[in-house]
């Protein structure tokens, strides 16, 4: 019921945006001139192979898993220079942590106006829109746009079920861009209904396994401020997500409750011809009330530092250290382990990763990487059922290989 209503409301928003756009345009263009319409079709297909020495990532990886597939096709139609419609269909398989197969990734309309000798752009985007969070979130399922096969999991959860609520949402966003010489400022503000009834996101947010019920309540708010120098030579960003959702249980034994999460993220990047340096730091402040006699509050923490080196035009290498703490006041996990009866290594993860990629023909790449991980905090309980019974290996290695084609 809730999901049906959600679809209607997002459609209504999209329809209103289209009507508003047409209204705005009707003054300037009395009839559509087809010679001004441009369209493009693009896509990608990526297949990964994952091997772990212990624990499982993207399927049964201890034996070597091919359960990591990402396929997408998108189309964009520019009806007028400042009016763009676009949509992308996505198929994704990532073992136990993604069992949704095909999905509508985005379907949106974008309209903008430029002012002051085109130094200022104001725009609106509505429909199912990608969530513009941090450096990589809005295109994170495309290996071409991320630095490694597996993104830093402290910030971009792919194995944990919060992922689904972070990818795309139904609603709209306002954006502005301002250019001043070599400096560029972007502001985005989004109001949207997250997809938190899919992909186990409800379980993750409530902390209840197989949570029987639905998420509702006010839409998520997101803001992102970006400063760029010289077309992105240097880049600094601040993003923040504010989520407040109510869980309506449909089983009398399980209480309803509400979840409040605030996720600020700071991002820095510097690019030279041969190398790039990147760092992001964020934390998630969570408050769950109604599920337990006393509300549970927690603040996690994630950060990474990453260097990329372009050896030639076709070869590049990446080195990264990525850290996640489930509770930043308990980085060793000791008191969380005592409270929950789970192993200490469930509450942190430190991942040292090194990788190479090779674009061996135009639009074809192969990427390989090795991760040495201490801790199991970001592993999927779907792929690692023994984790909930106190199992799991705190020290493990991961090897990942991905072949990708794009057009």
């Amino acid at each position, binding site marked *: 019921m809730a999901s049906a209503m959600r679809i209607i409301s997002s459609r209504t928003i999209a329809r209103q945006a289209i009507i508003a756009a047409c209204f705005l345009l009707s003054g*300037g263009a009395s009839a559509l001139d087809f*010679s*001004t319409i*441009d369209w*493009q079709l*693009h896509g*990608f297909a990526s297949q990964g192979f994952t091997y772990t020495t212990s624990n499982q990532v993207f399927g049964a990886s201890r034996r070597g898993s091919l359960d990591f597939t990402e396929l*997408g096709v*998108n189309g*964009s139609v*520019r009806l*007028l*220079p*400042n009016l*763009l419609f*676009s*949509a*992308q269909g996505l198929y994704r398989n990532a073992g136990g942590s993604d069992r949704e197969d095909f999905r509508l990734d*985005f379907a*949106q309309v*974008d309209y903008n106006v*430029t002012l002051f000798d*085109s130094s200022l*752009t104001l725009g609106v*985007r509505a429909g199912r829109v*990608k969530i*513009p969070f941090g450096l990589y979130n*809005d*295109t994170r*399922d*495309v290996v*071409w*746009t991320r630095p490694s096969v597996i993104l830093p999991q402290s910030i971009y959860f792919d194995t944990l079920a919060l992922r689904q609520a972070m990818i795309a949402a139904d609603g709209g966003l306002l954006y502005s*861009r301002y*250019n001043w*010489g*070599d400096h560029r400022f972007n502001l985005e503000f989004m109001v949207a209904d997250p997809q938190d009834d899919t992909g186990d996101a409800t379980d993750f947010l409530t902390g209840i396994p197989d949570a029987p019920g639905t998420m509702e309540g006010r839409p998520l708010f997101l803001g992102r401020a970006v400063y760029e120098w*010289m*077309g*992105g*030579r240097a880049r600094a960003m601040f993003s923040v997500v504010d989520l407040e959702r109510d869980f309506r249980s449909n089983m009398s034994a399980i209480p309803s409750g509400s979840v409040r999460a605030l996720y600020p993220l700071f991002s820095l990047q510097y*690019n030279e*011809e041969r190398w790039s340096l990147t760092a992001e730091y964020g934390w998630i402040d969570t408050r769950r009330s109604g599920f337990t006699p006393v509300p549970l509050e927690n603040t996690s923490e994630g950060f990474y530092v990453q260097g990329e080196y*372009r050896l030639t*035009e076709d070869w590049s290498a990446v080195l990264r250290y990525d850290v996640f703490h489930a509770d930043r006041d308990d980085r060793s996990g000791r008191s969380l382990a005592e409270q929950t009866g789970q192993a200490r290594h469930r509450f942190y993860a430190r991942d040292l990763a090194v990788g190479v990629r090779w674009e061996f023909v*135009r639009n074809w790449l192969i990427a390989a990487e090795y991760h040495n991980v201490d801790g199991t905090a970001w592993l999927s309980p779907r792929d690692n059922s023994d984790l909930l019974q106190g199992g799991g290996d705190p020290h493990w290695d991961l090897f990942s290989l991905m072949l990708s084609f794009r057009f």
Partner: protein
Amino acid sequence: MAAEPSPKIYAADGHADSLSPETLREIFFMRLTSWPDGTPIRVFVLPDKHPLHNRFSKEVLGVYPFQLRAAWDRLVFSGTGLIPHVVETVGEMRERVRATPGGIGYVDK
């Protein structure tokens, strides 16, 4: 060693006559999408590894080719913009730009 000719902006309809480096960057990053007369801007580029594309990126736009590619990839896969048409040779660049209303690209002299 003889100096190679510098990359030069090439556009149909006299659109490129007085474009500032900032405006050119907005155009080639696909953020500015129409000319002052309302014609859509259609951008043409050479392949990422072409020496002229490399020089154009660095000397005219002040960016590295991988920055352009990264920005275009973000546009395509978040559905927030169109990306340039890739042509294989400077000759093809001239032909396509000349034949396309609102076209812009670059040539070597």
